[in-house]
C-alpha cells in the first residue's frame, strides 16, 4: 500500500485531532481547552469531508464549531474567576483517572483491532443531499421522520429547560 495523498491528509488530520484532544484535556487554562476542542471539532469535520460526508461535516462545523464552541467561550468568560487558572491536580486523582482511562483505551483498542469486521468496500463519491432529505422525511424503513419529530420535541424541551434554569428568575 503506497502512500497516497489521502493517507497523508488522514495522517495529518489524525495527528492534529489526537494532539488537540490530549491538549484539550490537559491544558491548564480553560479557554485554551475550549480552543483545542474547537480544533478537534474542525479535525472531525475534516474526517467527515474525507469520508465524503460533506453534509455531516457541514453540520459539524455549523452546530459544534459554530454553535457550541461559542456557547462555551461565552460561558467560560461568564464564569471565569480567580481560581480557574491555578488548577492543581492531586496526583492520586490524576493517576486513578489516567489508569482507568488507559485501561479502557487498551481494552477497547485491543477488542476493536482484534475484531474482524466485514470486508470494507469504500465507495468514493459524494452523498447526494437529496437522498439525505428523502430519507429524513420518509416514514418507511430507513426513513427518519419519527426520530426527526421526536428530536424536535427534545430540542423544544431543552430550550424550555435551558431557559428555565438559566434565566434570572
Amino acid at each position: 500500500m503506497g502512500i497516497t495523498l489521502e493517507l497523508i491528509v488522514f495522517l495529518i488530520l489524525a495527528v492534529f485531532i489526537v494532539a488537540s484532544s490530549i491538549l484539550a484535556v490537559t491544558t491548564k487554562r480553560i479557554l485554551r481547552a475550549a480552543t483545542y476542542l474547537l480544533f478537534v471539532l474542525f479535525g472531525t469535520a475534516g474526517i467527515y469531508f474525507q469520508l465524503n460526508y460533506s453534509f455531516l461535516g457541514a453540520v459539524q462545523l455549523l452546530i459544534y464549531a459554530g454553535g457550541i464552541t461559542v456557547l462555551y467561550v461565552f460561558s467560560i468568560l461568564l464564569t471565569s474567576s480567580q481560581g480557574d487558572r491555578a488548577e492543581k491536580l492531586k496526583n492520586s486523582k490524576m493517576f486513578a483517572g489516567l489508569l482507568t482511562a488507559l485501561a479502557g483505551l487498551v481494552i477497547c483498542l485491543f477488542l476493536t483491532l482484534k475484531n474482524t469486521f466485514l470486508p470494507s468496500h469504500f465507495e468514493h463519491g459524494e452523498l447526494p443531499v437529496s437522498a439525505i432529505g428523502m430519507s429524513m422525511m420518509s416514514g418507511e424503513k430507513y426513513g427518519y421522520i419519527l426520530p426527526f419529530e421526536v428530536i424536535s420535541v427534545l430540542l423544544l424541551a431543552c430550550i424550555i429547560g435551558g431557559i428555565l434554569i438559566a434565566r434570572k428568575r
Partner: protein
Amino acid sequence: MEYTILILLLPFLSFLVLGLAGMKMSNRLAGTIGTVVLGIVAVASYYTAFDYFAAGRGADGTFPTLMPYNAVWLPISESLHIDMGILLDPISVMMLVVISTVSLMVHIYSFGYMKGERGFQRYYAFLSLFTMSMLGLVVATNIFQMYLFWELVGVSSYLLIGFYYTKKEAIAASKKAFIVTRFADLGFLVGILFYGYYAGTFTFTPQLQMLASAGAMIPLALGLMFIGGAGKSAMFPLHIWLPDAMEGPTPVSALIHAATMVVAGVYLVARMFPLFIGYAPEVLHWVAYVGAFTAFYAASVACVQSDIKRVLAFSTISQIGFMMVGLGVCTSADPHDGGLGYMAGMFHLFTHAMFKALLFLGAGCIIHAVHSNEMSAMGGLRKYMPVTHITFLIACLAISGIPPFSGFFSKDEILTACFAFSPVMGWVMSFIAAMTAFYMFRLYYGIFWGRENKELHARHVPHEAPLSMTVPLIFLALVTCGAGFIPFGEFISSNGQSYTIHLDSQVAITSVCIAVVAIAVATWMYLRERQPVADQLAKTFKGLHRAAYHRFYIDDIYQFVTHKVIFACVSTPIAWFDRHVVDQFMNFLAWCTNASSEEIRSWQSGNVQQYTRVFLGGVLVLVLVLLLI
C-alpha cells in the same frame, strides 16, 4: 366390684372441693370433709379386701386378678396404649388397706396436730390428693398408670413437705425431695419405654414370646425401673431426700415418708416380681445388695442422729432396705423354695407401715409437746405423756423384732429368707437388725428417760396430746400388737398359692437374742441421766461419729454435684454460651453489616468524577469478566 372406683374418686373430689372452696370454709368443716371422705374410703377398702379375699381362690389356687375398670386413656400406637383402671390382686388389696388405714389415722391425728395452723384446708386438700394418688398407684392396671400416679404422689409429697412454705428449710427440702425422686423417675421412665417397646404392652402380664425375643432388654428395663423405685424408696445413694423431708408436718411424715409413699419402690419391685424372677434374677439380687447396703448405712447413721424425726427417717430407710432385701433374695417364685422373701417383704411392708406410722405419730405428739425435734430438749418425758410413752415403746419393740409384736414376725421371715439365700446375707441382716434395736432404744431412752431438759420442761410443761392424737396412737399400737398373727402367707405369696407361715426357730431365737442384747446395750448406755459410755464412745471415735452424724457427707457430695458441677459447670456456661456466643453471633452479623456499610461509605464521596470513574471501572470489569470467564 364396681364400687372400688369410689376409693379413687372420693379423695379426688375431696381434693377438688377443698382445693377450690377450701379458702371459704372453716377449718373444722374442711377437716371434717377430708376425714369423713377418708373414713368412707377406708371402709370401702376394708370391704374390698373382705370381698376380694372372701371370694376365694380360683381353680389354680390363686386369688384371681380382677379389673373392675380398665379403659384406654391415651393411645400411644395401634398396639400400645396407656390405660386407666383398677386392678385388684392380693398385694394391691393389701396396700389399699394399709394406705387407707394409715391415711385415716393421719387425718384424725392431724385434727389435733394441725389445729390452728394457717392453711389447714390446704393441708387436708393435699392429704386427699396424696391419698388419691397413692391409692391410684397401687391399683394401677399397667406400669404407665403406675408411673402416672407415681409422679402424682411425688408432687403431693412435694407440696406437703413444703407445707410450711415460709420456712427456708422446708422449701429446700421439698425441692430436694422432688428433684431427687424425679431424677430417679427418669430411670423409671426409660425403663418403661424399654419395657413398652420390647414387651409390646404396658400391662404387667406381657406376652411371653415378646419377652423371650427381647433378650437382654427386659433386665435392662427392669433395672431402670428399679432405679425409679430406689428413688422413691430412698435407697442408697438416692436416699438423701428422705431425712430432709422431715421438714414437713409430722403426720405427713408418718403417712408419706414412713408408711406409704416410700414403700412404693418396694411395691413396684413386688409388682414386677414375676418378670424379675423369670427374666432378670440377677437384677433382683442387685436389688438385695442395694437394699442391704442401704439398710446398713441408714442404721449406722441413725445411731448418732439427735433429731428424733431424722432417726426415724433413717430407720425408715433401713427398714425399706430390709423389704428390698426380702424381695431381692428370692431365687424362685415358689415360696417353699427360695421364694419366701416375697411374702416376707410384703409382710414387713405391712407391719412396718403400722408401727412406723405409730412411731412418727408418737414423735409428733412429743414434738407437739416440747416444740422441738432435738433429743436435747427431751428426756424423761414418760412422766408427762404416758400414752405416747407406752405406744412408742410398743412400736420400738416391734421394730426391734421382739415377739409378739408384729415386727418380729415379718423381720424373722426376711431373715429366714436371707439365710436361705446365703448365710453371709443372713448374718449381715441380723447384725443390722441388732443395730435397729440399738438405735431405736437409744431414741426411746433419749426421749422418755435419760437426761431430762428440766430447764425447758419447767418453763413449758410438756403435756399429753389431745384425744384426737392419742386415739390413732392407740389404734395403731393395737394393730402393731396384733398384726403379727395375721396369716399373711394365706393371702400373699410369691406364686399366689397359699403359704403357711412357720417360724424357723433357729433364726427366730438368734434374732431375738441379738435384739435383746442390743436393747440391753442401749439400756446400759442411755437409760440414766449420766451416759459416760456413750460420751466416751463418741469421743473415742470422734471422726467416725462426726462422719455418721453428717450422714457420711453424702448430702455434701450431692450439694457439690448440683451446685458446683451442674449449676456452675454446666448451666452457667451454657447460659453464658447462649448469650455470648450464639446470641452474639447474631449480633455479630448485624455488626458486620453495619461495619461494612460504614466501610463502603467513601464510595459515595459526592464527587461526580469519582462516580463516573467507578462507572467506567464497572463497565470494564464486566467486560473482562464476560470475556475471561
